[in-house]
């Protein structure tokens, strides 16, 4: 930032009438004519160096910790308001960050009230910043962070479709645009850092966090990760532009294939498989964006928990990939080195190991890093390790422009949050994430063709948003959407069908399935409603309770069974027996391993958690206003006995296998449309290339049906013969295209050298000359091939 832009920033500040008294020129400035670190004209590295040189050990360590439940020490007695006096008393050397300013953690509990209002959040943030800037010795502003997986996770913000749904759009530009809005809404509320995106490949559907991921494919996760980070941060490595926030890439690595599907379980993944499958999304983001932060995973890989994995963080991330941002601990993960992994005897050892590994900041509370002052003084860890970590955290603050403008403006936040543009984008995203899995021609329905439409099911009348959701100002359920769509055309009747769980409170620890006796009565009611209707629209799936992050032993979220939970199959069977057209909408974050539904429904639309405008989009899809065009970002198992099941598993001999035993219910990349497409065989720009060169793949796609629709052309590469075992195919490119009825287009997808590399026996990344099959098609199963020869 130039001096000129600093003046602009000050002018902006002066315009904040609510905080008219604010000024950025603190005591330090008065005493010392603009110390270099306060000079926005200097490079970040110079400012960091200058500031670090002025800091005491206590001040440096303070920059490595954040406040969460410890917020109570800086709030007024019995109050929700920040108290500068108490802050100065509790934190005479300041503190580096605040965890989730939008929640009331640390404030007196009010049952049912988890959140601050937006205005209250902004007041809190500004109060903290004013204190930090004016009342701490060096005036270092505070870094606030929030969750923002699929929307700024607070109240009144816009909630978009869940990450796994966004992946199914196969539309990185959409992911970028959505994350731009998420960034804008988060930043407006005073936070400059978010803990997203998740680029873990997910290979076990028992794992409740699967909904937070972009699915199972390394390439797709990488493309979506790049798009999300670009949306959140903007382009490049430079200063954070207005309206953007720093992203945190998580969780590195091995999180997505925990033993037995239980969250944070160990992963026994060899190095080549890490490099082939788990690391590429992280690597792509580090290489192609200015990603600010990376979060190690909770789990261990081959005996080494990620927060002390020097190979992962030191050799690979910082060494090979030259990552220069900050490493932020996952919540309580440093303490878990003692309590879960038993690789440290106490918090002190844990802090030393994590810091020396390269974890720069401890979230959410800095429980162990608070001891670092003592540990440095005792000679147990060098001060230089603290300096390194502190420098990285300060660099974030300088890049974020916090020293120039740390405050938020409530009026502006209200103006830009969940505005018409954001809502329209949420609706567009929902439309583009619906995935049609089964259709015998029943869909689309014609509005008015059925005089009475029964909307039934536990997910019909509630807008399910999934985990890591805030409370948007409004959200549209399927029932709302269908009623609105059919107003004046047909009668809509509703039945609950079953209750999946006994409560709808998202955060409840102890999840109880709906009462079977009550559910039997509800099923009988639903059957009556269905009998009187002309078509049945049934909304099934999961809830925010039945599949979620199992963050503790008393807050479980993983499942040993992948089929519909509770009495939902009984409801489906009863409605199927009624004999009316039956359309099922799956609303969930876990892949629909619902063989009974797939066999009995006339149509099955996978909607995932479609965001706050989902009800409108689902209704539009039911009645053909929108033509579903998303594809599955995961392989859907028929049976839990098949997991881990993913399309690019290495080939293996099998014992006692009948043909098709390992076939999924739905393959990766699969999704239907209301129209039909014809895809040509692939044409290559060259049949023979040199190692290191690329090739362009062309596919003609023709809409052979009578409506406009989208197809996702997918390009897979198969190495026919290699020095190490390769999967039967790997996704290396895709393009979603919209075609009018009868329209033909030629899709060109460029494959660059990395599409052909492998990690050889010497663990070098190479392209091995030889023959490759370039496979293209509308999903991972129905593919046509062209041969490519790569020569040395």
């Amino acid at each position, binding site marked *: 930032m130039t001096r000129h832009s600093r003046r602009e920033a000050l002018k902006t500040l002066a315009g904040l009438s609510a905080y008219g008294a604010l000024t950025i020129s603190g005591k330090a400035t008065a005493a010392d004519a603009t110390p270099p670190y306060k000079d926005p004209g200097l490079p970040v590295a110079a400012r960091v160096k200058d500031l670090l040189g002025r800091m005491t050990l206590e001040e440096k360590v303070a920059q490595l910790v954040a406040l969460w439940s410890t917020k109570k020490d800086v709030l007024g007695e019995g109050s929700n308001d920040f108290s500068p006096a108490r802050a100065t008393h509790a934190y005479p050397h300041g503190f580096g960050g605040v965890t989730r300013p939008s929640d009331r953690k640390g404030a007196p509990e009010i049952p049912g009230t988890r959140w601050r209002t937006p205005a209250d959040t902004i007041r809190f943030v500004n109060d903290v910043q004013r204190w930090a800037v004016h009342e701490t010795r060096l005036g270092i502003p505070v870094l606030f962070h929030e969750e923002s997986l699929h929307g700024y996770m607070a109240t009144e913000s816009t909630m978009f479709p869940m990450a796994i749904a966004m992946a199914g759009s196969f539309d990185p530009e959409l992911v970028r645009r959505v994350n731009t809005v998420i960034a804008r809404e988060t930043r407006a509320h005073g936070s400059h850092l978010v803990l997203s995106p998740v680029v873990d490949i997910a290979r076990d559907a028992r794992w409740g966090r699967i909904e937070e991921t972009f699915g199972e494919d390394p390439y797709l996760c990488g493309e979506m990760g790049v798009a999300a980070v670009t949306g959140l941060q903007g382009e490049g490595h430079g200063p954070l532009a207005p309206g953007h926030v720093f992203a945190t890439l998580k969780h590195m690595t091995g999180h997505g294939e925990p033993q037995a599907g239980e969250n944070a379980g160990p992963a026994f993944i060899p190095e080549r498989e890490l490099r082939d499958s788990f690391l590429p999304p992280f690597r792509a983001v580090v290489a192609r964006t200015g990603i600010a932060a990376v979060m190690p995973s909770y789990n261990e890989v081959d005996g080494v928990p990620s927060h002390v994995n020097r190979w992962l963080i030191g050799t690979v991330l910082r060494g090979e990939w030259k990552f220069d941002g900050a490493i932020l601990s996952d919540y309580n993960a440093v303490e878990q080195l003692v309590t879960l992994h038993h690789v440290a005897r106490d918090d002190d050892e844990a802090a030393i190991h994590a810091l020396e590994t390269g974890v720069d900041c401890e979230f959410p509370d800095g429980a162990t890093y608070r001891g670092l002052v003592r540990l440095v003084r005792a000679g147990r860890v060098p001060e230089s390790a603290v300096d390194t970590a502190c420098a990285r955290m300060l660099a974030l603050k300088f890049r974020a422009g916090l020293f120039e403008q740390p405050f938020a403006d409530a009026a502006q936040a209200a103006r830009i949050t969940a505005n018409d543009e954001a809502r329209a984008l949420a609706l567009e995203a929902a439309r583009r994430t619906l995935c049609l899995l089964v259709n015998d021609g029943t869909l689309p329905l014609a509005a008015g063709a059925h005089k009475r439409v029964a909307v039934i099911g536990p997910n019909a009348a509630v807008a399910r948003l999934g985990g890591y959701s805030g409370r948007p100002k409004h959200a549209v359920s399927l029932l709302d959407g269908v009623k609105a769509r059919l107003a004046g055309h047909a009668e809509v009747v509703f039945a609950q069908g079953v209750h999946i769980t006994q409560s709808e409170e998202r955060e409840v620890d102890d999840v109880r399935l709906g009462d079977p006796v009550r559910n039997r009565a509800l099923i009988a009611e639903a059957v009556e409603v269905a009998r009187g209707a002309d078509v049945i629209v049934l909304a099934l799936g999961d809830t925010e309770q039945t599949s979620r992050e199992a963050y503790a032993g008393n807050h479980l979220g993983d499942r*040993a069974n992948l089929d519909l939970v509770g009495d939902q199959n009984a409801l489906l069977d009863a409605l199927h027996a009624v004999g009316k057209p039956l359309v099922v909408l799956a609303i969930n974050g876990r892949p629909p391993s619902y063989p009974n539904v797939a066999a009995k429904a006339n149509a099955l639309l996978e909607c995932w958690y479609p965001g706050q405008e989902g009800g409108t989009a689902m209704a539009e899809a039911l009645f053909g206003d929108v033509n579903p065009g998303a594809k599955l970002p995961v392989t859907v198992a028929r049976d839990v006995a098949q997991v881990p099941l993913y399309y690019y598993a290495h080939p293996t001999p099998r014992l006692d296998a009948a043909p098709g035993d390992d076939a999924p219910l739905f393959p990766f990349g699969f999704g239907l449309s209301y129209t039909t497409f014809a895809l040509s065989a692939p044409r290559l720009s060259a049949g023979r290339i040199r190692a290191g060169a690329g090739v362009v793949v062309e596919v003609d796609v023709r809409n052979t049906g009578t409506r406009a629709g989208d197809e996702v052309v997918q390009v897979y590469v198969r190495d026919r013969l290699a020095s190490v075992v390769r999967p039967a195919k790997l996704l290396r490119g895709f393009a979603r295209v919209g075609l009018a009825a009868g329209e033909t287009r030629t899709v060109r997808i460029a494959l660059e050298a990395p599409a052909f590399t492998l990690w050889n026996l010497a663990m070098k990344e190479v392209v091995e000359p030889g023959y490759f099959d370039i496979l293209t098609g509308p999903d991972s199963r129905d593919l046509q091939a062209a041969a490519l020869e790569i020569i040395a």
Partner: protein
Amino acid sequence: VLHRITRFALLAAACAAFPADAADDSARSAPMSTGEITALLAFGPPRPLVPGTLPAPIALAATWDRALVHGVYVAAGRSLAAQKVTAVLGPSLEVARDPRRGHPEASFGEDSYLVGEMGVAAVGGLQSPDVGHRILAIATGYAGPPLPRGGAGTAPMSERELRTVFLAPYEQAIARAGLSAVAPSRNEMGGVPSHANHWLLTDVLRGEMHFTGGVIAEPEGISDLVDVYRIAANADDAARLARAAGVGVPTLPAGEVVRPDVPEALALRAAMRAVTLLKNDGVLPLAGNGGTRPRIALAEVGSAGAMANAIRDAAGERAQIVAPGEADRLVVIFGPGGTAEARRAAEQAAGGHPVIAVFAGERPGVAPALAQHASAVIAAWALGPLGPRAVAAVLFGDANPGGKLPVTIARSVGQLPRFHDAKPSAGRGYLFESNAPLFPFGWGLSYTTFEVGPPRLSAAQIDAAGNLTVSVDVRNTGTRAGDETIQLYVRQKASSITRAVQQLAGFERVTLAPGEARTVALPLAATALRLWDISMRRVVEPGEYEVMTGPDSAHLQSAALTVTAGGKP
């Protein structure tokens, strides 16, 4: 040169290399050279080692009886030698941590130490001088997770876990039983099939384990490199890759199966010692409980072989075998191939009377609901032709069961893999169902009761070269003679690398008369505490350990052990 040597000369050479009167350990532990192996194989391809009249390996592991297993394999070896068999593909030393992989009945279970102990007993038995002529035992499954069965997904395997769990049994059989040959597993790890894995077959096997025996390809192991793994263009390429990796003897077609035939008394004894009583509310034994003569109905689910007849025979005058409607006890025999419908029918036939569930087959497929409502549950494994007699003897109390589970029985297929020596971060739990094992590893009941005391350590502190004795008092507090197996587990409280929550490090099965007390002394060397550190060196770390003992893996008492710095293991 082989064609110039007569078969007789070869046999003579082989026998000369192994004098029949050599019974000392040093002769026993001398493995064959590749030349000898080639010579022996000239007599015919290796025969798959099948149980024959014996209980399957999983059942033998359930005996937790090293001497018995050794004796059984000596007898098997004699029988094979008498049938002119010179080489067998087996035993498998694979570690069966997931019943969706491998042939569960052919393994010695889920625990690396137990597989190692049983492997040493089996290999030592087969290759024993007592066998008569030399038999080449080819330990199969080297190494890593066995192949998936049916539609199960593939399982990745990392180096430290591979070393800690899967390699250890082979190392034991090489070091302690003079294992003559290994056959690589047909899986791949990290993109490298075992048949082409130089690191596995040469660097580790020869370099680290000092193996001097033969590496013999599995019948399809080399063709897999072309047909499945696509790392070789053709058969010649595949053979070259395999040879370069360390396969010494190329693919041989598996010979016809030959069934070892062992003395009936031994086979019956082995079967009786393998029967594992998983649950008993007092309904068993069926006879001898107060003189009433029970009316027993029998039901079969799946193919249960001769079990029903054996039970009829054993009943004699002690019980009436009646139709289900007239019975006051129902014995349901679950064999391979039983359908869910048959199960339900059998359970309904009980009509409210006690159900005794007997599971014959590779792994007891007990469902949680059955475990809950059955009065008694017996794991009868794959016990061989004498199994039915053994089970009948147990049912009527002629034998007192003393087997212990060599595997964890999970509650459902969706909870796999589940094994006792898991990392502390495993097993957080599932919604809607407990993830606790239905029956834990090492579990098994008796018709008598035992009181097992806490562990007493001969030293509370040792160094890395040290060892100690762990003493456990065990008393038969019931009124019948019976067997208890005292199991010893260790755990490091905090370590540089994560470690299992418990690791089996010793066991001893003892027989006690009613009222008899005995002190079981289990040796524990510091080497049993080793881990593969961050630099992949095997070290004993100084620090605090727990030494845990008890009658199964879920009911343990603990004593503290400190390992001090110093001492070279």
